[in-house]
């Protein structure tokens, strides 16, 4: 009998692929932002908020953050699966991490559209 655990790995390629796709999104995002900051020598409040007042920038910033949260979920889950053995503790950590990341997602929307 295959013993599948709820806090196991789901035995699939999906998370592995998500980890890489989100990594590429974040890599493009951070290199673009770094290049922009390097190019804009005197960055102040007006320039900074001006950048984020553009809808495409906001949308990509949210895509970046959601990618970050997915990426963090897979990464933290991998770490927990390797070092935390008792299923109850593992499940508790998983729940805390998932809830935190969901709240970060809502918070991110508030930050980007509520400014």
């Amino acid at each position, binding site marked *: 009998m295959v013993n599948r655990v709820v806090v196991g790995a789901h035995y699939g390629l999906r998370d592995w692929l998500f980890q*890489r796709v989100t*990594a*590429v999104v974040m*890599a493009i995002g*951070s290199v673009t932002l770094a290049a922009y900051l390097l190019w804009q020598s005197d960055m102040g*409040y007006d320039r*900074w*908020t001006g950048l*984020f007042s553009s809808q495409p920038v906001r949308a990509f910033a949210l895509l970046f953050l959601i990618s*970050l949260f997915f990426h*963090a979920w897979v*990464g*933290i889950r991998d*770490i927990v699966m390797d070092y935390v053995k008792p299923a109850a503790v593992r499940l508790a950590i998983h729940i805390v991490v998932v809830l*935190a990341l969901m709240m*970060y997602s809502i*918070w*991110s929307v*508030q*930050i*980007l559209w509520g*400014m």
Partner: protein
Amino acid sequence: MLKKRPKHLALHLIKLPLPGFVSILHRVSGLALFLALPLLLLMLQYSLRSVETYTSLMGVLSHPFVKLVLLGLLWSFLHHFCAGIRYLAIDLHYIGNLAEARSSSKVVMVASLLLTVLIGVKLW
């Protein structure tokens, strides 16, 4: 030849090879960045909300201790970034043999530290 079983590994004598070292640092830096997420989001919020919050954030960020923490996070990000690019290269079979695995690990270590120093000096 008779083998002695069970075999006990002398953990304090085993040296982690450089690719293994880069791997564990990839985990450590990723965990550090995850734990810092609420702080980083708060910083983004303060930087965007109003001129007052922006100015107070800049005040907090100029504190030497805060700068030191940010420098640690900057290294975490850069190491995680460089090591991540290396893993993508491994997935695409750009890095295949042991020699390449070792030399690329060296590049990751040096590049992430060098970039941390460069960006750190520019921001300080």
